[in-house]
């Protein structure tokens, strides 16, 4: 029976390229807490929670938390995006590494398996080993529970111990990546390299997204043949608000923006060798606070060209050889794949020990997004709806997930990127469209990228924009939903306004409630009627994390009081409300219980003052990370954690972050310098204006550094509030005249570099110091000009040498004159002395005699003053008669041999 024709099929589409099945490792746990508290909530399996049932309250939901992989992205669990992607790359065996939420994952996989198969088959297969699931005929998933792993390094070492990764190459993928890259090409390249060079163990995918607003010039500067780029060494706290001052003005001018796919903490400096298929020579994840160096040998062996760039983003997918795992086992203390493993591998100089790592740039049309935090989650979601990830567009999702249960959903894209589920109607049938499941009120305005899940119903006069509505969501009349994600079975009552919110399954927003940007409404929570939820509030029903290794983030010690306080702590309500009014309540969780214990049927106590009387859910606050054992007090750390959380939320204004970053950048350029505290009252905008003023007009109110401005000099790259000249003057004054002046010179020099000061500044400072020293000799009386000159001459014996070494030309000499002027026109003793008629002339002449100031500088100075005219107060000294005389004489004698002649001329 026709067998012959059937078996003759020569070009089998599935003929294996690899003898060994291609394997992939998916790090389903991101080991971060950016999605808390969503990822702390009990993943309720497949039970559709139409009613907001509280999670199981036995307190211990360990293993059943919802892992990030099961969070829906555009109504499809992230896991599906990932698995589909891997399948398309030809992966046949997938190792799912998970620690938190392992149970939930396993449950989900089995459920999916059963539903897609309508059970029946293959169950005998996966029942034997519970963690092995045949996802499709091609792909087998191995679920690996590493519940005691707290970081990537541990997990990979564990994996190595199991000795299951055989395929070369295998794919190592972070769990939060959504991409449409064609991996086959990358693998081909990798295999080719590996064949030629056994030490090419890894290929890292990189996406060009632009750096942190760096303009290209900045990059190019570094991109030279000098092998050590000293960015700076600068331990500045990134969260100092006062520092914003410098940065903003620059930003305003250049109109930079942040690459949206970058996380708030991510910055990556790369050195690539484009001639050797983009071998990575430097991987620095923290380029703004340290020195980066590339070993010189790389330049020797890698020829001409090394590109330094900050424009690339780590996609989170690597093509690895099994050696990578072995390396991880060797280096038992590596925790991070990137900042430790990769960074150290590429920095290895010894050729014999080298493990080469290469970069692969995504091509145009290839998109990769990581939803490492909620801000990026939103961004990736919108990008996908804007079809950047084509062909990963909603029309192509064949499944949609409603609380774990499957049903087909087929979306169609209507005008202006409004996607609707039409699984109810016939396909391609114009009638079928009318019967589509999602109902939208006629007067409702739909705009922007929008995804409406099946059975979503939207009332009249609503406004929806840039949002995703999961299945069975209901919006009543007059709702506003912008930048928000409703994950399914969400009810939003009349007049509620959501802006930049993630609402998990089964949550209810009562009528009239306003939820501001960055909020997260956890599973089954209720926001009461008329409540105004402040921005960046996260509401959850999940119990407090009992502080152990339960959740394997970085919080491994129990120092954070907020997370262990759970049920018993709360005493002070006033504090909480005070906090709340200020910002998103860092300490609120401390007081989560207390008053409401009466009605708490649930394990979690509701913050009724936050969610309203008819609300449900407690406020979740981030716990400070204990990653660094700094001595910062708890509050500061708490504030930092809150700040971090905010920056990871939807709607966070990235320009704030940008300002901070830019500020740090500027400091780096200036070299480390601890800031004097500024006027504390000035907030960002005020500072800004003030700073702009400083640049704009130079005749400024007399503040401490007006003398800078009067010279029309704006010293860039220096902290405001630092009077460099004054500092220099102080340094000189502190100097003991008994020690050689050379020491002082070195000291001044170093300070000059640290402040980007000029020699002119030094001269000024020194001159002032000299005058001070001279005047010290006359503690009580005001010396006569004659006496002054005598003691000045004496002092200059010592200082002369210093002046000679710092005076480079007439510019500096002029600065000395300016310094004298400043002293004379200022107030105090020096002014009294120098202000007297002939004193200035005598001093000037003395300096001239000592060859500290030569006539060129004097003439230049005179020219300046002459132009200003008689009215100017600054030129008062110039118009003094003795000064004029002196200048006249000087002019005459300048033709002759002036140095001798000047001795003859005496006072008038």
């Amino acid at each position, binding site marked *: 029976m*026709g067998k012959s024709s059937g078996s003759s099929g020569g070009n089998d589409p599935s003929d294996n390229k690899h003898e060994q099945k291609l394997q992939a490792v998916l790090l389903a746990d991101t080991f971060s807490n950016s999605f808390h508290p969503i990822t702390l909530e009990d993943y309720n399996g497949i039970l559709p929670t139409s009613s907001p049932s509280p999670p199981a309250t036995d307190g211990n939901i360990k293993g059943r938390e919802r892992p990030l992989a099961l969070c829906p992205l555009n109504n499809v669990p992230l896991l599906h995006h990932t698995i589909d992607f891997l399948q398309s790359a030809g992966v046949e065996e997938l190792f799912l590494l998970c620690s938190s939420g392992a149970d939930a994952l396993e449950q989900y996989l089995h459920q999916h398996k059963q539903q897609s198969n309508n059970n029946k088959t293959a169950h005998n297969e996966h029942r034997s080993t519970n963690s092995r699931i045949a996802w499709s005929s091609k792909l087998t998933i191995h679920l690996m529970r590493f519940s005691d792993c707290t970081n990537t390094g541990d997990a990979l070492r564990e994996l190595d111990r199991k000795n299951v990764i055989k395929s070369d190459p295998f794919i190592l993928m972070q769990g939060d990546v959504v991409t449409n890259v064609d991996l086959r090409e990358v693998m081909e390249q990798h295999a080719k390299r590996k064949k030629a060079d056994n030490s090419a163990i890894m290929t890292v995918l990189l996406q060009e*997204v632009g750096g942190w607003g760096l303009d290209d010039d900045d990059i190019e500067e570094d991109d030279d043949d000098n092998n050590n780029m000293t960015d700076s060494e600068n331990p500045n706290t990134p969260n100092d608000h006062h520092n914003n001052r410098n940065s903003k003005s620059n930003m305003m001018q250049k109109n930079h*923006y942040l*690459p949206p796919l970058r996380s708030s903490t991510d910055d990556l400096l790369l050195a690539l060798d484009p001639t050797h298929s983009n071998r990575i020579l430097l991987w620095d994840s923290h380029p703004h606070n340290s020195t980066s160096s590339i070993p010189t040998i790389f330049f020797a062996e890698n020829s001409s060209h090394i590109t330094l760039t900050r424009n690339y983003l780590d996609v989170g997918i690597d093509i690895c050889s099994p050696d990578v795992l072995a390396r991880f086992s060797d280096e038992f203390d590596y925790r991070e794949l990137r900042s430790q493993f990769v960074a150290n591998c590429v920095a290895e100089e010894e050729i014999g020990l080298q493990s080469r790592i290469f970069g692969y740039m995504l091509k145009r049309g290839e998109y990769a997004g990581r939803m490492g935090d909620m801000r990026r989650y939103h961004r990736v979601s919108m990008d996908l709806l804007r079809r950047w990830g084509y062909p990963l567009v909603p029309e192509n999702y064949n499944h949609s997930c409603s609380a774990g249960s499957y049903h087909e959903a087929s979306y169609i894209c209507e005008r202006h990127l409004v996607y609707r589920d039409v699984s109810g109607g016939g*396909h391609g049938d114009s009638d079928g469209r009318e019967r589509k499941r999602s109902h939208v009120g006629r007067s409702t305005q739909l705009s*922007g990228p929008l995804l409406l899940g099946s059975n979503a119903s939207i009332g009249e006069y609503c406004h929806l924009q840039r949002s995703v509505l999961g299945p069975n969501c209901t919006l009543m009349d007059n709702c506003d939903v912008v930048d928000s994600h409703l994950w399914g079975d969400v009810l939003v009552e009349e007049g509620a306004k959501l802006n930049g919110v993630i609402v998990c399954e089964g949550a209810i927003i009562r009528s009239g409630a306003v939820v501001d940007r960055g909020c997260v409404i956890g599973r089954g929570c209720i926001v009461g009627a008329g409540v105004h939820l402040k921005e960046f509030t996260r509401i959850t029903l999940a119990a407090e994390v009992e502080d152990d290794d339960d959740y394997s983030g970085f919080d491994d010690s129990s120092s954070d009081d907020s997370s262990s306080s759970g049920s018993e702590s709360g005493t002070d309500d006033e504090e909480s409300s005070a906090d709340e009014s200020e910002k998103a309540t860092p300490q609120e969780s401390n007081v989560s219980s207390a008053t409401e214990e009466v009605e708490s049927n649930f394990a979690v106590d509701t913050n009724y003052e936050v969610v309203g009387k008819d609300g449900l859910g407690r406020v979740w606050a981030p716990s400070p990370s204990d990653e660094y054992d700094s001595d910062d007090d708890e509050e500061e750390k708490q504030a930092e954690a809150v700040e971090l959380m905010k920056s990871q939320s939807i709607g966070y204004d990235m320009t704030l972050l940008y300002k901070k970053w830019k500020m740090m950048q500027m400091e780096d350029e200036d070299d480390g310098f601890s800031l004097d505290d500024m006027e504390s009252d000035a907030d960002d905008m005020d500072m800004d204006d003030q700073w702009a003023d400083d640049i704009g007009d130079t005749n400024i109110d007399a503040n401490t550094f007006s003398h800078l401005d009067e010279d029309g000099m704006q010293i860039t790259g220096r902290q405001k509030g630092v009077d460099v000249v004054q500092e220099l003057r102080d340094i000189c004054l502190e100097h003991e005249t008994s020690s050689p002046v050379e020491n002082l010179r070195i000291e001044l020099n170093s300070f000059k570099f640290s402040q980007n000061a000029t020699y002119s500044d030094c001269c000024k400072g020194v001159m002032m110091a000299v005058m001070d020293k001279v005047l010290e000799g006359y503690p009580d009386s005001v010396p006569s000009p004659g006496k002054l000159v005598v003691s000045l001459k004496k002092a200059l014996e010592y200082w002369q040498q210093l002046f000679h070494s710092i005076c480079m030309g007439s510019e500096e000499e002029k600065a000395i004159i300016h310094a004298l002027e400043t002293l004379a026109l200022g107030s105090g003793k020096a002014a009294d002395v120098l202000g007297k008629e002939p004193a200035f002339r005598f001093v000037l002449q003395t300096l001239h005699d000592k060859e500290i100031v030569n006539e060129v500088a004097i003439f230049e100075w005179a020219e300046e003053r002459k132009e200003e005219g008689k009215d100017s107060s600054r030129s008062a000294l110039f118009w003094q008669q003795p000064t004029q005389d002196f200048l006249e004489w000087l002019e005459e004698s300048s033709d002759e041999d002036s140095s001798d002649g000047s001795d003859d001329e005496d006072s008038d």
Partner: protein
Amino acid sequence: MSSAAEALPGPSITTNNAPANLDDPANVRRWLQENHPKQLALLEKFQIDLRLGRILSSTTPSGGDEAGSNIGSNSSTHQKYQYGKERRLVTSHTVELLRSIIGPTRWKTAAQLLTLLRGLANELHDVGGYREPAIGNMVRRVMFIVRDEADNFPSGGGGGGDVESKNMEKIDELSAQVSTKLRVSPSSTSAPGRGKELSLASMLWAHPQHVTMKHSRQQSGEGISDMRIRSDSFGSTDSGAVNVTSSNSFGCDTAATQIYPPHYYMQWDKLRENVMEAIEEVRGELKDLHKNINDQATQHIHNGEIILTYAFSSTVEWFLKTAAAKKRNFQVIVCEGAPHFGGHAMAKSLAEAGIDTTVIHDAAIFAIMARVNKVLLPAHAVLANGGLVAPSGCNIVALAAKQNSVPVVAVAGMFKLCPLYPHEGQDTLNDLISPSSVVDYSLMGDPVLSEVEFVNPVHDYITPQLIDLYVTNIGGFQPSYIYRLLAEYYHSDDWD
């Protein structure tokens, strides 16, 4: 014959308990999984490729931005495909897939086979086949073949009265299952609980095709009457007289339960063989496609003509090259076809063949149209009304040609013929791809720019009035004749 009864759909009410049967397109996947895992693997592989656009096509450039500009570099990595051949390759791929699935699998009757095919078509459609109409067309084509072969059986095989009596027995069995079946089969399709009962009118239409027509229409929830009349008008491919009588005798019963005429439920050993042979023919047809089209090149391209074409199409490319090879001396103007700029590759290829080639940018189309003698357009799909789905931008060309009374010739293989009416205007068979070819993603960081909507449609729908001639592998046709070809190529039951 007794074995045929076993193969019939069992009385499975809840599809979960019974082993999967080929009684329902929705069960196909399960059936494959249970019985033919290898074939399922093939299917899934194909689906994934399709879904992610890995099987490239000339007008849906998922990775085609760079492919458009440099053909060579692309070919090495994207398996063995050369850019530009993809459409035909997709098609022949589909045929391969069908062949390798229906070849070794254990279907027994024509009905089962048709169900299998229908299920496959649904599967493929779901994963993105709608973007590639040629795939659906190929499945329809094969189904048509199967019907054709099956129709040969009772009449041509000459089973006579014996067969018929056997049939009767079987029909009785079947009617016993009617009630259960009714619950099962509709659940598979998307519209549960809609029109299953037959109207009196439909019973009067005893002709099997009409009855089945009626039934399938109802199931898919479409309008009925128009389609029936149309199918009546060109039901030339239908079976002979025996068929009519046999269905007359028990048409009412069967129609309610069965989608296909009763003789489709017979087991016939030669069916597999015949079907495979016919599929082989289809493959051959695909292989000779370009040869057949190109043979007509000299009829359409004359010396001294100025031909305008748009973007890149291998069909057009070879058509022109063939004409040039046959010593026709003509000039070609290529529109570059932003944003994918397939025209650049096209121009390069033509120039290499020694054709006098000019590249213009798309905005110059209207200006230059007055000088053009003929417009050659590529095709993504040919629609049932004679309309054309072509790369985005072709509509401009067609409209400009109309304005200047320049004849527009569309070159297309018959496999691009779709039994689909353009209800949705420009949205018909259209697809929006990543805006990356229009704008760079790194610009998207700009908060203002990211709010701008970038639309990057791949196709244009061109109304039949703007097309003067289709040049296909079976000859040249006017758009008004296309509907007739549909009847020759596909069975009307398989249209949806």
